């Protein structure tokens, strides 16, 4: 099963990007599932359900969303495998710019929007700097000049990533992204897999710099998800 992690600041258009990309993927990939990580509440599961995409939600509550993500992402993989999915896409909001949810050897996507201002690519940390693909949204409402400056700044912040512009409303550009999703590698388990960069500090092993995923490393203040699917 292919796994893709999508992260980005709140309201940057992650859900729209995933749904528009999934429309293209449906033709070539079999079953696609989404796991949505959020902090307090989310209504995006209804949006996914309407688009015909199976989704589960994980709410981190008072925990650092990144720590919650690391403690649960392998469970998500096992759930998705049990469901017979061919691709699992995780969506998580990067709330502080120090967020770092990307995993080595797992395709990592960062979604940011053009409205965030020209300095934003420099301000966002590992979430952007360690991503394989940076997706830029809301280009339809800013000038061509601002789009060009923005993409230059993104390249400066992460010269190794490819930059894809997507219009979340019309889906323009989503075909390009779906092409990259297809090239992601298969994942069987994340047990032992490594994060690309340590997550922000907070009171479990991950708070003090643990980077290995797995049950043995989940001690202290660990919170697990319940896998309840929502139907349309």
């Amino acid at each position, binding site marked *: 099963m292919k796994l893709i992690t999508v992260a980005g600041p709140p309201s940057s258009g992650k859900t729209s990007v995933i749904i528009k990309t999934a429309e293209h993927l449906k033709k070539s990939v079999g079953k696609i599932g989404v796991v949505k990580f959020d902090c307090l509440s989310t209504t995006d599961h209804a949006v996914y359900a309407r688009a015909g995409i199976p989704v589960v939600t994980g709410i981190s509550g008072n925990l650092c969303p990144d720590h919650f993500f690391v403690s649960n992402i392998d469970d998500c993989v096992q759930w998705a495998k049990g469901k017979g999915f061919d691709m699992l896409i995780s969506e998580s909001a990067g709330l502080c710019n120090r967020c770092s949810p990307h995993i080595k050897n797992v395709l990592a996507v960062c979604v940011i929007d053009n409205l965030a201002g020209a300095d934003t690519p420099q301000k966002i940390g590992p979430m952007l700097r360690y991503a394989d693909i940076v997706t830029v949204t809301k280009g339809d409402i800013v000038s061509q000049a601002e789009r060009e400056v923005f993409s230059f700044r993104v390249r400066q912040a992460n010269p190794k990533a490819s930059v894809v512009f997507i219009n979340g409303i019309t889906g323009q550009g989503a075909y390009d992204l779906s092409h*990259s999703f297809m090239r992601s590698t298969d994942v069987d388990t994340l047990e032992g897999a490594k994060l690309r960069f340590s997550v922000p500090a907070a009171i479990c092993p991950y708070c003090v710099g643990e980077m290995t995923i797995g049950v043995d490393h989940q001690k202290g203040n660990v919170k697990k998800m319940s896998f309840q699917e929502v139907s349309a």
Partner: protein
Amino acid sequence: MSADLLNIPFAVITDEHPYAEDYFKSVNITDFDTELTPNEIISSLDDNELAENGFSKDQIASHFIEFIAQASMLKQTAFRAVESITIIGGQDKSGRKEDMELTLVPGDILCIVGSTGSGKSRLLADIECFAQEDTPTGRTILVNGKPLIGEDRFRLENKLVAQLSQNMNFVVDMSVGDFITMHAVSRMIPDIESTVKNVIACANDLAGEQFTPETALTQLSGGQSRALMIADTALLSSSPVVLIDEIENAGVDRKKALELLVQKEKIVLMSTHDPILALMGNRRIAIKNGGIAAVMETDDEEADTLEVLEILDAKMMELRQRLRAGERIGFDMKKYFGLK
């Protein structure tokens, strides 16, 4: 570009790559001895402090090499030219074949007409992603007579299309001069100062009302913003193809705007409902039910039509000017428009 770069004194690197310093600034490294090499500068940094800010030494070093490589490539390809773009038909929403092939060369203006939802944006999207019979329309787009295949198709360097639409606004809070300078810097233009001057002069020529480099972007009127966007796209954007979604009539000399783009050897595709704009193109295509229903050359009769429409347009413009000047316009309109 290789790891050797890390062992060359910084001052030597900046001679050839002035943007190198910009990269270090972007990762919060300022105030260093330029006689040192990047390796020496990076290894003197504090690991803990870097981690706190989400950086690491390895990453800064490898990104630096990559950035310099990409930036020098960008500089070489600052203004790319395409010889032609070819659209090969696919099918419409009901599966009816579009039996057409259309080649556009620099200086061409192709207008796209059709009702809302007919599939105009889909055609523009096909061009933007160089469709290879793999989009819903099944169209193929060729560049210089050949398909772009494999990874080439998705590289940002190969993105050929600049877009201009009525919904676009400037969102940054800067002066016009600073903003255009920022754009020129990111485009690796050699002569920044005169380019910036040129863009602003051009924009002022397109807009009725003048603005200066000190004017804030947010203070520009709708017409001035549009004029600046057009001038900037014509003179500063690397994209050889410009997609325009309607240019409103107020405050911009549309004819001059199109002439400027054509003169800069752009291929212009413009979706419009306006008869004047539609006839300004050499050709137009009509879109119906997601498919290209007709390709029409602007003929001699239509050229005559355009002449009359332009006279009427000028008269409308004059009425606007009078309104603006606080005058009354209750005089004999039938006579004014030559209707009797």
